[in-house]
């Protein structure tokens, strides 16, 4: 039954993708991308990847759609068909598809327990996590502790992207404090009853749920990445309903910059504290006399750092796009 449901969802996914490719209206394409993300999140969920599904739903369907729309507000929303013939592209792509399809017949069947991917280090992680880390969620244990270096790198990639967007688009340091921002009466959706009511109702619960999965990430699906995305989604909703100006009064750009930097520094700080206490970089066992308690503390702090940086960067990017005037 689940298999059939998965097949149904995947077929819908392909249909949605064809719709995205064929439409010349970029607004429609972006909306279809949101649906695409939601569908692929459902696919991830039935493939047992609860954490990934949560991330894709919050980031792909939520934040990515808002960012694409924010950029589209500054651009033309209709795509012009190029004059260049794309027949060569079609031939190359068709040949590539056939090649990959041919290769799939050598893949292990979906769910095969004897597949090579399940033989290497994965059983070790599942068997040793209770003894070494003692958090129920193995994904969080690997993300924050065993593979802390990877996550450290990812956080700095996001940090860099935030700085990059600021460099490319921000109008100098005081862009957020400009006085020529339209007053909040004409901005936002506050004159529309339904979006205003739904937005105001949803916003506190979104932020609360974000905080929940931030601190509950060791035990259930969740963690800093998902929490950061959800909290920024809540604040973006507030900005959409009440207008940019109100949102920036609630959480000024200075605070967002501070959050971004503080999160990244917290991650580095925890890593350095481990070294000062005699362990390796990001070896949380050194943080406490009891190695497992040290791991718990380290994972908690690092996840908070991730959450701060992700929410700070995503909100900064959103405000940067929103503050830009159309050329």
């Amino acid at each position, binding site marked *: 039954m689940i298999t059939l449901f998965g097949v149904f969802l995947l077929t819908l996914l392909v249909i949605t993708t064809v719709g995205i*490719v064929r439409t010349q209206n970029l607004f429609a394409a972006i909306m279809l991308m949101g649906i695409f993300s939601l569908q692929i999140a459902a696919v991830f969920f039935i493939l047992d990847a609860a954490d990934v599904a949560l991330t894709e739903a919050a980031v792909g369907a939520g934040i990515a759609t808002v960012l694409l729309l924010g950029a589209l507000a500054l651009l033309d929303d209709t795509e012009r068909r190029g004059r*260049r013939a794309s027949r060569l592209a079609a031939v190359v792509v068709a040949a590539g598809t056939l090649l990959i399809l041919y290769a799939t017949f050598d893949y292990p069947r979906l769910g095969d327990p004897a597949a090579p991917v399940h033989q290497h280090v994965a059983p070790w992680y599942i068997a040793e996590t209770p003894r070494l880390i003692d958090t129920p969620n193995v994904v969080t244990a690997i993300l924050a502790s065993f593979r802390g270096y990877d996550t450290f790198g990812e956080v700095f990639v*996001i940090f860099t992207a935030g700085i990059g967007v600021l460099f490319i688009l921000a109008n100098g340091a005081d862009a957020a404090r400009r006085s020529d921002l339209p007053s909040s009466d004409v901005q936002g959706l506050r004159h529309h009853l339904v979006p205003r009511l739904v937005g105001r109702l949803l916003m506190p619960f979104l932020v609360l749920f974000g905080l929940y999965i931030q601190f509950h990430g060791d035990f259930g699906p969740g963690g800093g990445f998902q929490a950061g995305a959800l909290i920024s989604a809540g604040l973006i909703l507030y900005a959409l309903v009440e207008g940019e100006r109100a949102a920036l009064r609630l959480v000024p750009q200075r605070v967002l910059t501070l959050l971004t930097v503080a999160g990244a520094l917290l991650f580095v700080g925890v890593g350095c504290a481990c070294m000062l206490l005699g362990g390796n970089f990001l070896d949380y066992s050194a943080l406490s006399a009891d190695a497992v308690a040290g791991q718990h503390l380290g994972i908690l702090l690092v996840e908070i750092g991730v959450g701060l940086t992700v929410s700070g960067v995503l909100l900064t990017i959103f405000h940067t796009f929103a503050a830009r005037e159309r050329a």
Partner: protein
Amino acid sequence: MAVLGLYNYWVFALLLMIGLYVVISRENLVKKLIGLSIFQSAVFLLYISMDKVDGGTAPILRADAENQLYSNPLPQVLILTAIVVGIATLALGLAIAVRINEAYGTIEEDELLEMDRE
């Protein structure tokens, strides 16, 4: 059901190549970025499809269940962070597209190339 055991990988192949097709055949920069996102999602689907184990559940350990099978957590960790990095690259790409539009007045690649040649 044995035939359907490879269905995920077929959809992966289709999505991957549709994404690539959009990137190389469309002139509009926003459309190209959307194609890149589809390409990326196809890779996510490939990794997450590999993590599934028959009879397994999400890798959140339960104290009350002996001999419970768990799906592979490793691909999930890789893809979880990749999704967030994906949004970061998308944002950066969109920022560049907006700046290009301000400088040239268009984001159609063929028009941009023509203007650069003049």
